[in-house]
């Protein structure tokens, strides 16, 4: 069936990656000449809200605090289809939090989730798993009953599966 001499898998990967590397090198050169900003990962600012229209619409010009909101999410996701996320509001007494929003910078649906709490909430810890359509920043936003808005921004690197599976 296969008569060619055996080629080591490393060489095969290099052949496949060479074109990709050439493309990236080209893109990098283009970026440099046009003065485009460097890749997000090297410049992540936790105190800066990413420009998400749905988020801005919700904020409607209100100011936000960058303390108290807790957002635990892996720095590098094993798979973008299912990323664990933990939300919480530090020191929030029962009855003090109205809702928690979760926004995505890159997903086709930017407003990922809204958790609406009731007086029956003992604490505002939520655990779930989300989908991330690529490397991006996520914003968790708690709306307190007194009107305060607490946010936390996290950046997640999302890698793709190794054997791109068409099955």
């Amino acid at each position, binding site marked *: 069936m296969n008569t060619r001499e055996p080629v080591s898998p490393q060489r095969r990967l290099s052949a496949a990656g060479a074109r990709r590397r050439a493309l990236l090198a080209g893109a990098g050169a283009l970026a440099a000449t046009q003065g485009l900003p460097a890749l997000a990962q090297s410049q992540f600012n936790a105190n800066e809200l990413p420009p998400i229209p749905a988020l801005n619409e919700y904020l409607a010009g209100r100011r936000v605090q960058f303390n108290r909101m807790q957002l635990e999410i892996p720095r590098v996701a094993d798979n973008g289809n299912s990323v664990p996320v933990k939300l919480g509001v530090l020191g929030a007494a029962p009855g003090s939090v109205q809702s928690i929003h979760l926004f995505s910078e890159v997903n086709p*649906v930017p407003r990922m989730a809204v958790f609406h709490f*009731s007086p029956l909430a003992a604490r505002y810890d939520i655990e779930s798993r*989300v989908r991330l359509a690529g490397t991006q920043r996520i914003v968790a936003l708690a709306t307190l009953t007194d009107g305060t808005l607490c946010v936390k921004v996290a950046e997640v690197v999302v890698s793709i599966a190794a054997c791109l599976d068409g099955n």
Partner: protein
Amino acid sequence: MADARVQVPAQIKRGAPFEVKIAIRHAMETGYRVDDVGKPIKRNVIREFVCKYNGAEALRVDMSSGFAANPLLQFWLTAGDSGELVFEWLDDSGARGTERAAINVTA
């Protein structure tokens, strides 16, 4: 078969916080995938999820395709009277799912 799994503590002290966990078997089809012949697969995700404790709304979640398939939710409630939690969800196709869990509160 409405496939969902729920976990609550067997016994809870009145007034104490307790964790509720629910896992629902639902593909949460995003609408962005295509099938073998390139035809788009219609979006069908759970949009609304409600947990009621003895009839009163305890937690409501607006969901989207941003949740992983077979969604998992873990949250905390305060124990009041014994009774039950009723979970209800509605997806894009109009299908409703429901699950229950008994709540056993001790003094």
